[in-house]
């Protein structure tokens, strides 16, 4: 779900509520003005003709003056009411609770680096482009950017927040409906701005805890020979230069972490569904799918690719 019309948090719901009020009042104002315009056209309140340059009658003039002043008064009243409404919503959104789950998010051209904060550094979970959050618990995102300005936006959960180099920013919300919510970078950040999406999975606390526990462990080493060969391909064909896989020698942080790749719903920052076929296409030539992405093509033989995919599929 990916729409400000389908809120799944009290925060997004407050904004949607504000929007529907504004829409109702705004549409009425528009309608009144347009109806007044058509009535002005239909009226026969004066003669038409080249010699008729006289002012309107004094009575009409007084009436018009009174109407214009009245319209102005109503406009001011609506605007002041709107201002008050907006400030109440703004205050509610700003009042952050304490004891929130903290997720640190770093924007990269063109993917999202995710870290779950933990006082124990060895338990800090690092992942990419997909976040799990517990339903009913406030989650705080802390943002930073390593390159250009990005903007974090999951419309069903909250409004957006910019990630600006040299600045730290944050956003918090409580997901109150379990579900899968899509989000996307909202600030133009270069060639693949359009394909810089992410997924937020809101699930019950117990499921979330289970996921967190599973994600903290490294995947088991490959058991069958194809996957073991695939791991060697990963280490030797250049993949390990950029990516990390927990429990192996691949510990680079240029690209997204791949430790639990198969547990994610999408690859290439929300661009492709995470199937074996798509993964193969992506590895062979990412430039065809996301022209300009930092990941180079990998000219692998069919055997190598099959083995690599077999290995990647073990990263659950």
């Amino acid at each position, binding site marked *: 779900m990916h729409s400000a019309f389908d809120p799944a948090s009290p925060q997004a719901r407050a904004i949607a509520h504000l929007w529907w009020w504004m829409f109702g009042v705004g549409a009425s104002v528009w309608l009144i003005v347009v109806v007044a315009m058509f009535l002005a056209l239909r009226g026969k309140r004066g003669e038409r003709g080249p010699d008729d340059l006289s002012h309107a009658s004094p009575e009409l003039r007084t009436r018009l003056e009174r109407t214009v002043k009245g319209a102005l008064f109503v406009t001011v009243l609506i*605007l002041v009411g709107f201002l008050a409404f907006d400030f109440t919503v*703004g205050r509610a959104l700003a009042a952050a609770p304490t004891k929130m789950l903290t997720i640190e998010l770093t924007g990269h051209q063109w993917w999202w680096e995710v870290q779950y904060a933990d006082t124990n550094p060895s338990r800090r979970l690092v992942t990419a482009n997909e976040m799990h959050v517990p339903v009913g618990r406030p989650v705080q995102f802390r943002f930073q950017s390593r390159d250009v300005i990005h903007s974090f936006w999951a419309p069903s959960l909250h409004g957006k927040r910019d990630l600006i180099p040299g600045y730290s920013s944050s956003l918090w919300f409580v997901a109150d409906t379990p579900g899968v919510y899509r989000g*996307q970078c909202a600030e133009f950040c270069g060639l693949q701005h359009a394909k810089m999406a992410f997924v937020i999975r809101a699930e019950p606390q117990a499921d979330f805890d289970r996921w967190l526990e599973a994600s903290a462990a490294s995947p088991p080493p490959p058991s069958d020979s194809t996957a073991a060969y695939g791991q060697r391909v990963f280490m030797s064909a250049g993949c390990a230069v950029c990516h990390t896989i927990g429990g192996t020698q691949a510990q680079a942080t240029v690209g997204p972490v791949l430790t639990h790749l198969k547990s994610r719903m999408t690859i290439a920052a929300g661009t492709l569904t995470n199937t074996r076929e798509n993964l193969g296409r992506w590895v062979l030539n990412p430039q065809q799918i996301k022209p300009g992405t930092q990941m180079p093509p990998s000219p692998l033989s069919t055997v190598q690719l099959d083995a690599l995919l077999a290995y990647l599929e073990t990263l659950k």
Partner: protein
Amino acid sequence: MTNPHAALPADVTIAPDEIERESRALSTVWSDGSGLWAWLTTVDHKTVSKRLIVTAFLMFIAGGIEAALMRAQLSRPENTLIGPDRYSQLFTTHGTTMMFLFAVPIMTAMGLYFVPLMVGARSLAFPRLNAFGFWNYVVAVVFLYVSLFVNTAPDTGWFAYVPLSGPQYSPGHRVDVWAQVVTFTEISALTAAVNIIVTTFKMRAPGMSLNRIPIFVWAQLVVAFMIVFAMPAVATASTLMLATDRAVSMHWFNPAEGGDALLWQHVFWFFGHPEVYIIFLPALGMITPIIETFCRRKVFGYTPIVMANITTAFFAFGLWVHHMFATPIPELGQSLFTAASILIAIPTGVQIFCWLATMWASRPKLTVPMLFVLGFIFTFVNGGITGVMLASVAFDKQAHDTFFVVAHLHYVLLGGGVMPLLGAFYFWFPKFTGRVLSERLGKWHFWLFVIGVNVTFFPMHILGLQGMPRRVYTYLAPTGWGPLNLVATIGAVTIATSVLLFLVNAVMAMRRAPDAGPNPWGASGLEWAVASPPPNYNFLHAPVVESRHPLWDTTVDLPVLTGFRSDRREVLVTTTFDARPDSRHEAPKGSIWPLYLALCMGVLFIGSIFSPWFVPGGIALSLLGLAGWGWTGSKPTSHERVATPAAVPEHA
């Protein structure tokens, strides 16, 4: 305020043969000659402004073609018609063209053409400066479009946010092109502003005190002051900061070196928001004379409308942070800008209510210019209301940087800027060319345009709230954004068709002989007192004004002031408040130096992309031009105090 000339004898008339002799003498002395040299050196404000209007309209078409290409790419999900690199260049060139090369220049050009005619002057205050501004604009146009065709067009959006547009993330010359195109348009806008301010304050017809200035001229005056305060901000941002960051590593915006990435947004939007009103207020200024003419009523609430213009100009400088509500700016600071953004709706509301009241008291004649005014109300009010919505920080967090904003800004700029402008084209086309445009084709143009604009941009509100960010070259099918995008593309085709009809209409009109006469609509402004198209000297005799609607309120002939020399380009200088005759001034003749200096600016700023040495080089070349400019101007001795003026009616 009393008219200083009201008591003067008005029984003297001017003999027809004297008029004949005088007009011949004047047209000789105000002529810039013919041939290529004259074409390059002319300083006639009408010739220069017409060129500016035509070029800016060509830019509207160019920007429209870019928009059509983008709409074609977005018509269905995962379309592969245009790749991300081309697409980035297209939306950046589209925005840059529409804002800097179409909207602002065409609005000021309308002022540069009409302000002298509407205030009864023979010329702009600084004709050569006007030509200089025009040639700078031409440099910008050529530079941007050459770069587009050699695949070097800017690609970081029309507001070029750093660090993306900085040296690290945008190597090459694409962003340099953007920064310098902006520089040329800044120069061009500033020259226009200075000209409009001085012309309005010092060259009005005797008797046209401040409270008798036509509303269009008021709007132009207010906007000229806005340009004077807004353009230096973008000059600082693009020329002083971004260009030096890129050319000589100044690190203004690099946080690693103590720079600030958010600073750019403040400086840019301090210009960028007033820019919207620089486009919008002149358009509003065009509406009043159209409504007055076709309702045959003096506008209801002259003073409130003028005050609304001035108030809007002040508020416009206090809104810029509403473009930055998603950045980490403290909430308390943001709320101030929310309040200001909401308040600016009030003066605009005042103007619309006054126009409705004017129409209410009359029986409007639904000509094409009038239809466009109605289209303006229908479309713009929608954009104004979404503007108030976007002032809310909470709501803006959802809508910011999405297609909702794209919808809003096009409703405001097409509804609030282009629709009045198109109406104004139909209204003043006879004045420019001596020919009236076809009403039948005009009505087709109007309906297709209004329907097209609404079909294109209304669905974008929904798309934005459904999660579609702006500046995406494609989107995935599961997002469900396909159908509404297709509707928007169909709307874009409708707009293109309507603009084509307008061009056909203009070409067909130009093939006829001029037959419009001085005042085909029976309008009230001074510009309608002269022939269509106006002679090079504008007014045979300086008109004397006794009301806000000189052609309506003068029952016999328009009173004029005589006694000026017809053997040199003499213009009348009047006092700022009451427009009493003050002195005479000799206007300069045609000159090559404006073109030469504009080319020097071209060498300086375009060269500076490649080497900083072009800056001192360009300055050295400019010194020669400045010397030539100063040498050939009018002499200070030609200022003479005007003796007792005599107001006499003219039989013409």
